[in-house]
């Protein structure tokens, strides 16, 4: 357990450094980019360079930045605005979207997977396999547009875009965002359940004279859920990061949109801030899953 947590530390610094380096070390002068086509005085340039430690070696810049992040400070943008402030309104929107998608994923994905896994090669199984494969194959922006046109406009079941209608506005985008993960969860549950149903210990449980319901519900399901829960945990973080496309299709002003606007405006610190934040969330859910994994499966010990 402790070793696992310690392993997290180099990965944390490595990943955040990579992002930092990508944005700041690669070609282009952020200060000049900030100015755009407008001329800017040398003294302003100097001041800004000092402000953002741009004359330090990259690793020192990173050290100063990540020191702030560890204290919960994601820095300021080149216009002097607090990145924390900029993100504050947007985090709950992306989180709402991701959590709602996560809910769809668990409820529908698990039920479909269990249904298909129990009736292998039956109708429900084929239906689930084909539907999930189709959903996985349609890129999310295509799916998003289709949902918008058919479920939003034609049928009028859902608000089409924006967030003016409160939580209702999030329903359709969340379904779209969660759809691919939902399909994975269904397939993973099905495969895992099917594999475990063939396991020797299931035969033992049957030989013990247990009811089918107990054999499946207690003996098989617990084992089958181990990989599924692992996936679910990893996916919660990934949904936050993956919301970019959905947010742009449905015009939701969340973190994804912020990354985009900041890239267009060349606001390096905001891009790094948001990306670092999302990576931290992603890594934390990963770590939590690893630890949960050891609880679920007594064979695993991180020592």
């Amino acid at each position, binding site marked *: 357990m402790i070793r696992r947590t310690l392993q997290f530390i180099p990965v944390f610094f490595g990943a955040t450094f990579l992002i930092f380096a990508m944005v700041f070390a690669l070609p282009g002068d952020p200060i000049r980019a900030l100015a755009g086509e407008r001329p800017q005085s040398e003294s302003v340039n100097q001041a800004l360079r000092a402000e953002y430690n741009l004359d330090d070696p990259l690793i020192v810049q990173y050290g100063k930045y990540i020191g702030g992040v560890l204290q919960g400070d994601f820095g300021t943008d080149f216009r002097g605005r607090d990145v924390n402030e900029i993100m504050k309104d947007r985090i709950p929107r992306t989180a709402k979207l991701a959590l709602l998608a996560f809910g769809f994923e668990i409820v529908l994905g698990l039920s479909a997977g269990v249904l298909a896994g129990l009736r292998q090669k039956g109708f429900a199984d084929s239906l689930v396999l084909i539907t999930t494969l189709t959903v996985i194959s349609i890129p999310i922006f295509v799916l998003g547009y289709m949902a918008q046109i058919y479920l939003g406009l034609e049928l009028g079941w859902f608000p089409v875009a924006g967030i003016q209608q409160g939580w209702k506005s999030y329903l359709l985008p969340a379904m779209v965002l969660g759809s691919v993960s939902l399909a994975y969860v269904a397939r993973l549950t099905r495969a895992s359940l099917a594999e475990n149903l063939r396991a020797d210990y299931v035969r033992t449980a*049957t030989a013990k004279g247990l009811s089918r319901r107990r054999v499946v519900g207690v003996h098989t399901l617990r084992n089958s859920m181990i990989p599924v829960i692992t996936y679910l945990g990893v996916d919660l973080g990934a949904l936050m990061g993956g919301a970019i496309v959905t947010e742009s299709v449905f015009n939701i002003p969340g973190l994804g949109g912020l990354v985009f606007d900041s890239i267009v405006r060349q606001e390096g610190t905001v891009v790094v801030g948001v990306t670092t934040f999302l990576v931290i969330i992603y890594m934390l859910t990963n770590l939590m899953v690893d630890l949960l994994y050891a609880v679920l499966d007594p*064979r695993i010990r991180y020592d």
Partner: protein
Amino acid sequence: MTVTEPVPETIAASDVPLLEVVDLHVGFRTDAGTVNAVNGLNYKVDGGETLAILGESGSGKSVNAQAVMGIIDSPPGFIPKGEVLYRGTDLLKLPDDERRRIRGNEIAMVFQDALTALNPVFNVGWQIGEMFRQHKGMSKKKATAKAVELMDRVGIPGAADRVHAYPHELSGGMRQRIMIAMAIALDPDVLIADEPTTALDVTVQAQIMDLLAELQADTGMGLILITHDLGVVAEVADRVVVMYAGREVEKAPIDELFAAPRHPYTEGLMQSIPRPDQVTRRLDPIRGAPPDLLRIPPGCAFHPRCPYAKDRCRTETPALRTISTDPLRSTACHFAEELYS
């Protein structure tokens, strides 16, 4: 000769055998065709008696055990023909829930590899205790206490400490003891042990066989021992059924089988193991490989590997019959009298 242990009254009370298998057939439907795993099997076991079912892998011996237990996956498995009579009742005709009550309660089973046969995510006490909780409606606490008692009985030292251990934390021998404890939890009348020692070290094998014999002596249950190991058979069995390609080829009391096999296949098995009383003899394995159950050879299934095979063996399937010279024994060889007299 057939019954060596004293038999408690309750089990041997009636004339009906404790467990009788009559003309059992089991098949599996696969993409490549129907696999005929068991093709007409007959045997009886009484209380206190140990019947060994001997055969190579693919001989149908384990499938037979699963059919008796009623744990064959269906589909693809199916039982086109046959009866499994427990105290005179055909289990194959019972409704599912009655069948289920017999499993574990009356007929229990020990599997080959306890590491995979035990559920990896529950501790062993929970798994043993489940028998009491589910069949007897016992409380969790009482069931765990019973589990400790049973673990003690099957010779697990420090049972109270190990009751919360997980299967992977125990040694192979300990795990097999757990399997046995689970199987005998509800005092079954018949215990089927499917290769109970194959996955274990030689020294541990002997301990497990001793334990099974000891438990049988205590409880008077009938024991069906499924194995490919003649050594195991020699030690504990009263009678032996030798199986080949899903059919029985020879039946005999244990001593007589060893003294004088009456089927070329049994003879081949005997010659393929070293025996201390025949130091100078060369080991002589059976030629060829066991048949493909999708395409069992016509006539006597053993004929392609039989050193004595004649034309008749290729066309006519030999029935199991009593040999004139010895009424206790039967064989499925056309030429038993000529070969072994």
